[in-house]
């Protein structure tokens, strides 16, 4: 099978002006992926499906990933010549930078006809709040239908062009997107006999407030863990 770089080059020749880049995967699996821009994504997908040397006729897996915005501290080292004439000093400058968050949809493509794969496509949203659309690939691969609905349901990615974009796993009146990293689960930690970590913090809210007269909680009651 062609390498992702070769596929990118071929795609760029076929779709001039398209944004396509290769995202390297440092894991031993070395399954590198192609990051596509929004505009011709559906056409590119169709090309990948029908191209005789690739024939990626099966879209195996579709999933979302949430990348919340995070603070990145970049350390740049620069050599500053010592004005006193001594050896040049190495000065570290730390630049704090907010990397904007985005949501990502990942497609794993295989070829049943030729028996190769995977070719991995990635589509990214602009941010996590108002620009959360990516084009849907369901018109190309029917396999994406339910899985894209799931991405919409759990991550809140709006897949434009999907024929039936509704919640699939949660109920329709549900408002949150639970697979996002910043989702706050409803508070039902009334009975947590073995809490630790986050659960302990949540369970503590339900511990009986010791009466003012007795500032020390009786031993019989839940003793919050130190």
């Amino acid at each position: 099978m062609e390498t992702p770089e070769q596929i990118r080059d071929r795609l760029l020749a076929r779709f001039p002006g398209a944004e396509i880049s290769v995202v390297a995967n440092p894991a031993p699996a070395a399954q590198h992926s192609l990051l596509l821009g929004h505009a011709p994504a559906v056409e590119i997908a169709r090309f990948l499906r029908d191209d005789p040397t690739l024939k990626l006729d099966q879209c195996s897996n579709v999933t979302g990933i949430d990348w919340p915005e995070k603070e990145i501290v970049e350390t740049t080292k620069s050599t500053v010549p010592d004005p006193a004439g001594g050896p040049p000093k190495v000065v570290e400058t730390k630049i704090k930078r907010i990397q904007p968050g985005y949501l990502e949809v990942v497609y794993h493509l295989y070829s049943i006809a030729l028996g190769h794969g995977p070719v991995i496509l990635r589509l990214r949203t602009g941010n996590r709040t108002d620009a959360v659309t990516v084009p849907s690939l369901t018109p190309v691969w029917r396999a994406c239908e339910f899985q894209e609905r799931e991405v919409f349901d759990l991550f809140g990615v709006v897949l434009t062009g999907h024929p039936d974009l509704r919640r699939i796993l949660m109920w329709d009146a549900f408002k949150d997107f639970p697979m996002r990293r910043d989702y706050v689960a409803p508070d039902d930690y009334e009975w947590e006999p073995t809490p630790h970590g986050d659960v302990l913090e949540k369970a503590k809210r339900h511990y009986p407030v010791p009466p003012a007269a007795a500032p020390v909680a009786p031993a019989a009651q839940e003793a919050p863990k130190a």
Partner: protein
Amino acid sequence: MSDNPSAPTPGITQQERDELRRQGILLTSIQELYTWGSSHSVWPLNFGLACCAIEMIAASMAKFDIARFGSEVFRPSPRQADLLIVSGTVTKKMAPQVVRLWDQMPEPKYCIAMGACAISGGPFKQGYNVLKGIDRYIPVDIYIPGCPPRPEALLHGLVQLQEKIRGFKLTGPDAPRHLRADLPCDYPVPEFGAHDLEPPANPDVWKAPVLVRNEKA
């Protein structure tokens, strides 16, 4: 069922029997017939939720054969069922349907929470869509821990339930739930809310106890 008053009947002590004799021989006989019939003919609802359902099916299969207890009649319609075996994780999306099924069953009805998930949410209890125990909405008679419990454990639970039914009285505090005026007979079905079920628990049925840790240093 026997005429000999000294014959021990499982679940009924001599003292309780004497108490009932005072209430009247007819009532006692009816009560014994009633508890005997109910305990030997517990028809479960053909209702599986998750992994434990497979073990529930296995319990009705040849090796374990729940039919020996007269309980192989898995009725698909709640109207004819006596026992709701909550066999598996109850998700928040599923909880209203489980409560509705419970409401649709005719009294007297019993509920077994089979497996960790049905009791408390089990290994999935930290999930956002998982109900932490079906007893937040409906009263549970027998809890069978395990993940999943062996089919024998379910049979053991069923035997425990039969014992419990045999211990019922027609009047007084040992009466079955539907004969007692102080217990609710109506279990409102929770609604789907924007973030969680509303209400998150039925306060008539469930109240979290205060945890007692007998700390001994």
